[in-house]
């Protein structure tokens, strides 16, 4: 009986011992604990320092470069577009100036043409007028010559008639004849010219 109890007690105590671990054990590392801790940390540290972290850093750097490159490219494209826009504006302004200049030129040219034409017309008109004058003069001369010839004949006829007919009005007739003769005498050149022509 007592041995059975003792055996049970021993068994219980042994079981208790087996389960038991001191609280202080939590704070005091066993050698194997430290060894394996170093092993697992070394595995992780080796993998991270030698491969994982450099690889990720490379990828991140590459991405940063790409983004910065993209930004730079966009900036240069923007600048290019800006330059093109400015160039277009400049060209447009130039074209406008050109158009204005051409318009101005055309205007002055037109004015010059009009003026020239006007002048030419004036000259032409003068010339025509002159010609007309000359023609008129010539015709007048011709008429004068013709007239003079006729007047001579008529005068002679008149004179003969006057002399032959009326004696009553002797005095008046003689005055007419006198004046006629005077006029003839006063204008010999004309008479001559008339005959010549």
């Amino acid at each position, binding site marked *: 009986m007592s041995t059975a109890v003792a055996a049970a007690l021993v068994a219980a105590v042994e079981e*208790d*011992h*087996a*389960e*038991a*671990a*001191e*609280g202080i*054990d*939590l*704070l*005091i*590392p*066993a*050698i*194997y*604990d*430290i*060894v*394996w*801790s*170093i*092993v*697992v*940390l070394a*595995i*992780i*540290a080796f*993998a*991270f*320092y030698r*491969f*994982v*972290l450099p*690889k*990720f850093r490379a*990828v*991140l750097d*590459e*991405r940063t470069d*790409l983004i910065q490159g993209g930004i730079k490219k966009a900036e240069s494209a923007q600048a290019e577009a800006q330059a093109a826009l400015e160039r277009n504006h400049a060209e447009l302004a130039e074209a406008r100036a050109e158009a204005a200049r051409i318009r101005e030129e055309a205007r002055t040219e037109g004015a010059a043409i009009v003026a020239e034409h006007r002048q030419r017309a004036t000259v032409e008109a003068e010339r025509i007028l002159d010609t007309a004058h000359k023609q008129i003069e010539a015709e007048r001369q011709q008429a004068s010559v013709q007239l003079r010839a006729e007047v001579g004949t008529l005068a002679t006829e008149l004179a003969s008639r006057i002399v032959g007919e009326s004696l009553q009005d002797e005095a008046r007739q003689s005055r007419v004849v006198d004046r006629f003769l005077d006029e003839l005498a006063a204008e010999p050149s004309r008479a001559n010219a008339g005959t010549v022509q």
Partner: protein
Amino acid sequence: MRPSRSHDHREHPLSSLATILPFATSEGEGFHAPTIADFFPAPVLFEGSFLEVNRLQIVRLIAALALVIFMVLVARRARLVPGRSQNVVELLLDFVRVNVAQEILGKERARKYVPLLTTLFFAILAFNLTGVVPLLNIAGTSLIGLPLMLALWVYVMYLGAGIRAQGLGGFLRSNLFPPGVPVFMYVLLTPIEFLTVFVLRPATLALRLMANMVAGHLMLVLTFSATQFFLLEASGAMKVFGALTLVSGIALTLFEVFVAALQAYIFVVLTAVYLNLSVEAEH
């Protein structure tokens, strides 16, 4: 069974938790209350040697290999236009680089320490998350060795950074004799600062991480083993409590995911802060 350990004959408080809780009766299988023994499972390989492998070491190895394989695969397929998994990884990488490193250290100095902070963050996150992965079910960081090694790594890095930036004398002077303090205060301040820089910073880094993971594991085991007990072994109306513990277990699982990320974040933030305090001459 760990007969090789000499302290097994001593009793510890949590192992007696089962006897305190009312439903943890001694009859039959009963209720398996979580104990600290969970963190010291039986060895599987090389028992007793410095290469002893137990369940926790296997979990750590699986987590490390899974993390490395996943990251290497994603990194290999990394393209300018990221895919889905690359997006997630880049999100985390950006988070550590921008929100931790650059925010605390400034853009210039951050560049040098981003690999350290990133590696720490991913490693801690992976080891923390094994606590909620089915079948693994224990955080790799819940045993002090790993948090301690992480803290030691940070310790070496921030001491090295400080000495490189200011020289040994300059580093000690700016850290142990903070400027702008009356001379007699150094009697009080210098020991405190010494303790802070050389002991408390790494110790708190390691303990905070380990304690959070231990607590999370205990809570999860408590809720789920209680659920099993209530559903399978409790009688009658007591089974209703099973639903309650199951729901709280699920909620706690989600909470543990959050804690896993939070602790990883806190660890790298503090690392960045310590690095910053070391390289800055005046603080």
